[in-house]
């Protein structure tokens, strides 16, 4: 089961950063914004679905590649990865709309 934790943590980091980058791209590129709106009926809903898909795909990929043991040092790295992902995601999004 610890493979799910490794996969999920890495999946979260990638999805969180992807979410932030997609915000910047979507808000500065009308084509991306409109594509999301056309395919998913609303750009915001589209963003959510795409971010969830990225999370699921990366989680599944890392799950299939990771080892079943969750060591102390790996757990510390995952904790740092998750915290960094959350903070970076917030700072990029908030910073983009603030500046």
């Amino acid at each position, binding site marked *: *089961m*610890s*493979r*799910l*934790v490794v996969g*999920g*943590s890495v*999946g*979260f980091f990638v*999805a*969180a950063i992807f*979410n*932030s980058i997609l*915000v910047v791209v979507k808000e500065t590129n009308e084509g991306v914004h409109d594509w999301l709106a056309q395919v998913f*009926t*609303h750009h*915001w*809903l589209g*963003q*959510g679905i795409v*971010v*969830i898909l990225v*999370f699921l795909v990366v989680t599944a990929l890392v799950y299939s590649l990771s080892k079943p043991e*969750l*060591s*102390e040092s*790996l*757990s*510390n790295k*995952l*904790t740092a990865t*998750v*915290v960094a*992902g*959350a903070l970076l*995601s*917030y700072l990029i*999004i*908030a910073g983009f*709309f*603030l500046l």
Partner: protein
Amino acid sequence: MAYVGMESGPHVFFALLAMLVAALTLGMVYRNGNTSRTRQLALILAILVWLSWISIAPVYMYEYGTDKAVIKSNPETAAAHSIGMETKEHVFYTGLILATLVPMIAYGTNGESGRRLLLAVLVLIIVGGIILDAYGAWIQTSAKIAYALRGG
């Protein structure tokens, strides 16, 4: 019968309940470690955050546009949308994925190493929830002010 003003009520209700469950889970994990009860709470927490998203999606997509136009039409309140709502609506997805991760960690770990990861994620959920709630309060207050200014 339509309850005007309650459109975002379920979203706020589920989000606040999720934060309470997160705080309870944090206390229980800190004190007793990751138990079968905290695993159940972790699952409930994730479900509540998903319900918070599902319940606000149609409101945001189809109803908020009217309020948005009024908020943006006043220079005094425009930032509540252009900074507050724009940040809130997008950071929420990071929180949604983070909340989904909580039961994965709770059910996927045992012992001290998993406990620390779980505690860190729960703290992030609570702090993030408070920040998003503050954005929500800003938007709600600005909407009232914007409508009042429009009414003259």
